[in-house]
C-alpha cells in the first residue's frame, strides 16, 4: 500500500476528529458531571422535570412523519422527472429551488401559510369549505406543520437521489416485465423498489439524521411548544448558561437516538 494517498486524507480526517469527535466526547463526559464536579447521573435525574419524554416522542413522530412524506413526494417527483415531456427542463429547475432557500426563510414563509388567525392555508380552506383551522391547537397538528415545511425544503434532495437511482435501472427490465404482463404497480414493487434499495437507504440516512437534528424550523414555527429534543436542548442551554450540564445531558440522549437510528438503517439497506 502506498503512503501518499493516505497522507492526503489525513488533514481532513484530523479536522473532523478534532472538531467533531472531541467536542462530542467532551459533551458526553461533561453531561455526567454534577455541579460540584463529581461523576453522577445528576443532570439526567434533573431532566425528568423538563418534559423530556414528550420531547423524545415528538422528535420520533416528526422524524418518521417527515421521512414518510419526503419519500412519497420524492418518488412522485422522481417518477415524473424520469419521463420525457414538454416542459421537463423547466420543472427540474423548479424542483431544485427549495434546496437553495434557507431553512429560516422556509420557516418564516410557512409560519405565514399556517398563521393562527387567517393565514394562507386557511384562506384556501375557508374559500373552499368555509373552514378556519387553528394549526397550533394540538401538538400533533403543530408537528404536522413542521413536517410539511420541512418536506417542502428537503424533498428535492430525496427526489434527486431517487432519480439518479431510477436512471441506473436498465430499461430492458421494464420492457421484459411489461411483455410478461406486469402492470405499473407491479413493476414499481418488483423492479423499481428492489433496485433502489441502496439509494433509498442513502436518502433515509441523509435525511433521517437531519430530521432528528431539525432545529431552526420548529424553533420558528412552534417555538418550544411542543418541544423537540433540539429545541429542548437549546431552551435548557439559553436558560441555564453558563451551566450547561442539563443541555449536554439532553444532547447526549439525542446523540444516542441518532446512533441507534443510523445503525438500524445501515443494517436494513444491506450495508452498501
Amino acid at each position, binding site marked *: 500500500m502506498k503512503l501518499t*494517498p493516505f497522507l492526503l486524507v489525513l488533514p481532513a480526517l484530523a479536522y473532523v476528529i478534532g*472538531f*467533531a469527535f472531541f*467536542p462530542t466526547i467532551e459533551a458526553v463526559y461533561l453531561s455526567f458531571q454534577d455541579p460540584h464536579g463529581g461523576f453522577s447521573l445528576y443532570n439526567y435525574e434533573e431532566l425528568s422535570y423538563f418534559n423530556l419524554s414528550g420531547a423524545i416522542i415528538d422528535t420520533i413522530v416528526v422524524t418518521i412523519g417527515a421521512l414518510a412524506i419526503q419519500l412519497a413526494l420524492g418518488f412522485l417527483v422522481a*417518477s415524473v422527472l424520469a419521463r420525457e415531456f414538454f416542459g421537463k427542463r423547466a420543472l427540474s429547475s423548479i424542483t431544485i*429551488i427549495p434546496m437553495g432557500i434557507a431553512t429560516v426563510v422556509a420557516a418564516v414563509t410557512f409560519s405565514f401559510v399556517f398563521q393562527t*388567525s387567517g393565514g394562507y392555508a386557511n384562506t384556501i380552506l375557508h374559500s373552499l369549505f368555509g373552514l378556519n383551522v387553528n394549526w397550533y391547537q394540538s401538538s400533533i397538528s403543530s408537528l404536522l406543520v413542521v413536517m410539511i415545511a420541512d418536506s417542502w425544503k428537503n424533498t428535492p434532495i430525496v427526489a434527486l437521489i431517487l432519480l*439518479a437511482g431510477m436512471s441506473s435501472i436498465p430499461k430492458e427490465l421494464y420492457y421484459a416485465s411489461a411483455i410478461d404482463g406486469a402492470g405499473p404497480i407491479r413493476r414499481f414493487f418488483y423492479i423499481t423498489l428492489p433496485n433502489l434499495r441502496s439509494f433509498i437507504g442513502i436518502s433515509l440516512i441523509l435525511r433521517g439524521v437531519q430530521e432528528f437534528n431539525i432545529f431552526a424550523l420548529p424553533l420558528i414555527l412552534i417555538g418550544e411548544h411542543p418541544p423537540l429534543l433540539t429545541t429542548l436542548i437549546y431552551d435548557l442551554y439559553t436558560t441555564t448558561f453558563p451551566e450547561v450540564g442539563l443541555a449536554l445531558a439532553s444532547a447526549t440522549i439525542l446523540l444516542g437516538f441518532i446512533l441507534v437510528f443510523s445503525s438500524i438503517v445501515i443494517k436494513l439497506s444491506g450495508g452498501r
Partner: protein
Amino acid sequence: MRWWTYLGAIVVGIYFLFPLYILVLLAFNSPKYTVLAKFPSLLPVSLTLNNLLTALQGTAFIDPFIKSLETATLVGIITIALAIPAGYGLSRLPRAIAYSIIILLLVTNMMPAIVIGIPIAVDFLKLHLFESVIGLALAQTLITLPLATFILQGTFSSIPIDLEHQARVDGANLFNRLFSVLLPLAAPGIAAAFLISWMFSWDEFTYAILLIPYHSTLPVTIYQDVTRGNLLAGIAFSLIFTIPVIILTFALQKYLRGEYLAGGIKG
C-alpha cells in the same frame, strides 16, 4: 400515460412554487392584505415597494448579510482545500480502507450540531473565537467537509487511472499531475462540492445561533426579527437572503445532481 405525467408535473410544480409565491406576496402586497388580514389575499391586489423600503431603512441588515457572505465563502474555501486532497487520496486507496474512512467521515456528519456546538461555544469563549466569523466557519466546515469529500471521491474515482499513469510516465510529479490532468477533469465535481458547501453554510443556523448569538449572520437576524414581531423586516430580509442563492442555484444547476450527491455509491 402522457396525461398522468402532465398531471404529476403540474402538482409537483405547484407544490414547489406555492411557498415562494406566498413570500413574494408578503413582500410586495400591502400589509392590509397580508400580515394584518384575517384571510390574507392569494392575489397580488395592492402591489407596493413600501414594505421593502421601510424594512430596509434604518434596520441593520448589511452587516449580517456580509457576515453570511464571508462565512459561506470561507467555509467553501476551507472545505475545498481539505476535500480535494482527501477525495483524491480516498479514490486511490484500497476500497476497504477508503470505505471505512468515508463511513467515519459520514458518522461525524451525523453528530448533531447542537451537541457539538455547545462544548465548542464554551471552548471558543476561552479562545476568543466566540462571536467571530472564523470560529463560525471552522465549525460549519464540519457539516460540509464530509459531503464534499464524498462527492470528490466519486469524481476522482471516475477519472481513468491510466491517464494518470501516462502523465507519470511522461515525468509529471504528483503536483503536476494534479494541476494539469486531474483538477481540470474533476472541475465539475469540484464546482458541485463548492456550491453545495457554500449553500449549506449560507443556510446554517444552529452553529450561528450558538457561536455568534449577538451580532450574527442573516438567518439568525431574520429569526430575531420575526420573533420580536418585526415581521415586514423579516420578510424583506428573507427575500434578499434568497435572491443570491436562487441565482447561484440556476447558474450551477447542472452540477446539482443526484449522481454527485450519491457520490461513490455506484463507483
